[in-house]
């Protein structure tokens, strides 16, 4: 996908890939042939620019055909660079106006409870979105309504447009903050599959009437050392030969 554009939110995508892998191939209930099946778990991508990563998961999950991969960000594609619900099967909301996802998740959580549905709402957001006030309105509300069907995933890669998130508007200490807001909070290495599986299982099976958050410390450009090493990798330009190197490194890792 990114190769077509030569640039993009590639470091975030590589960083969050493990979280999405555990979400889509361990935790979520869905029917690939019927992405709007009523009984599905809802997965909201609040961070619209992470669409490149979610498209990969939706392709692996069989919701989008692999043949559309090359159309990422191309005119009239179903895979725009910022995720939009009206464009893409399996994309639940139009994210990208950062800070909106969690509030929408609260409404969906309330709606699912009205319908007596057992489905979960997952909201994937970034550490940068912790700076948005609406996030905390929604955090308070989710606890107020005891939304035990709401699981928030925070991608903490400590990198936003202008630099490290902790230097832009520090959200630490993050886990106690969520706990103080009434949430069950876990903080894990977001690139450790085993830790993620355990955290998702805890969040899904917990008996407490509280919303759950998993703060995932991830590494930008995980798995491709020469991209990881770039100091500012919020929006990466990647040359043609670098794509080949990156793919080689990643597939080595895959077969190892």
């Amino acid at each position: 996908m990114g190769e077509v554009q030569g640039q993009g939110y590639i470091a975030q995508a590589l960083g969050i890939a493990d979280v999405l892998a555990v979400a889509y191939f361990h935790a979520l209930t869905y029917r690939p042939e019927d992405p709007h099946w009523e009984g599905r778990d809802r997965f909201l991508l609040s961070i619209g620019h992470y669409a490149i990563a979610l498209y990969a998961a939706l392709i692996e999950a069989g919701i989008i055909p692999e043949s559309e991969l090359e159309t990422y960000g191309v005119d009239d594609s179903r895979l725009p660079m910022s995720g939009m619900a009206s464009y893409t099967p399996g994309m639940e909301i139009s994210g990208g106006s950062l800070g909106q996802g969690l509030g929408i998740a609260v409404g969906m959580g309330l709606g699912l409870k009205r319908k007596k549905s057992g489905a979960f709402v997952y909201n994937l957001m970034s550490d940068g979105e912790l700076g948005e006030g609406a996030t905390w309105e929604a955090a308070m509300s989710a606890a107020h309504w005891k939304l035990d069907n709401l699981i928030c995933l925070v991608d903490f890669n400590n990198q936003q447009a202008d630099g490290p998130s902790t230097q832009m508007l520090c959200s630490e200490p993050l886990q106690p903050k969520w706990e103080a807001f009434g949430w069950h909070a876990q903080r894990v290495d977001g690139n450790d599959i085993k830790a993620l599986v355990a955290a998702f299982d805890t969040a899904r099976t917990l008996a407490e009437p509280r919303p759950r958050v998993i703060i995932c410390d991830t590494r930008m450009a995980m798995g491709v050392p020469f991209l990881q090493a770039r100091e500012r990798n919020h929006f990466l330009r990647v040359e043609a030969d670098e794509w080949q190197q990156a793919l080689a490194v990643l597939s080595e890792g895959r077969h190892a």
Partner: protein
Amino acid sequence: MSAVKPRLTTSAMIASIAAEGQKTQAAPFGHALSALAETRPDIVGMTADLGKYTDLHIFARAHPDRFYQMGMAEQLLFGAAAGMAREGFTPFATTYAVFAARRAYDFICLGISEEKLNVKVVCALPGLTTGYGPSHQATEDIAIFRGMPGIVVVDPCDALDISQAVPAIAAHDGPVYMRLLRGNVPLVLDEYDYRFELGKAALLRDGPDALIIASGLMTMRALETAEALRKDRIDVAVMHVPTIKPLDEAAINAAAARTGRPVIVAENHSRIGGLGEAVAGSLLRAGLAPRFRQIALPDAFLDAGALPTLHDRYGISTEAMVQTIRGWL
């Protein structure tokens, strides 16, 4: 000893805009929504700490399990309303017009309108209907919502209009912004052969000397103005435009095409971006150029004070309108 004129004070936010002795109905929105909800199990009511001041408390009392108090958090209110709509419900989400238009704009625009979600944004204190000053006076709300793609904008005149607009906007599949008059709301349109139809303007009375095009409470003022001018043998037509977007351009253009009759748009809104400029655009696109005047609020932050004082000061009271229009004709 000279008689001391009683000093008017800033009226409370819950004060009615009804004139003394005027026929009114209490909380028409709350009662209409409660009644509609009997046959529409998908309807839920949501508010951001303004249930009582948007008449949603009537609905909350009638359907407590369908009422969501979201607290003083407007961005959350409209985000959560979007989520509810995604799950198949039809939320009526209420707050004051200033907070929806100014604070929660992005959440209504991207969260609701861009996705064509079935949320009804119902807002009290539109235009100049409170004396609390600029923090509460939504003098530019229509300009703001007219600019938002995909949303329907409704500005009802009275209790009858509100009662009929509620089922109509609920039947419309998509986002709606409705300006709300709350409390004891005047009842005016029952004396005219009128029914609210979404997207339709209605000629309430005809007359050769001028055409007043109005929405919201200014339709009531226009009708009173027309009566007052009749005593001077000035016979003006009044067209009520309860749906500002999409605008009933066909009806407006047809009425304005009658030659020799100036067009006066009366609106409880800034002269910028409201019904006046919407009508002007419609007329010009149709090649019509009648004499055109606006009775509207100035492009300014308005004073605090008692509503009757302010309506006189800014020219939207009946007396002020009669004076202004007499001067134009």
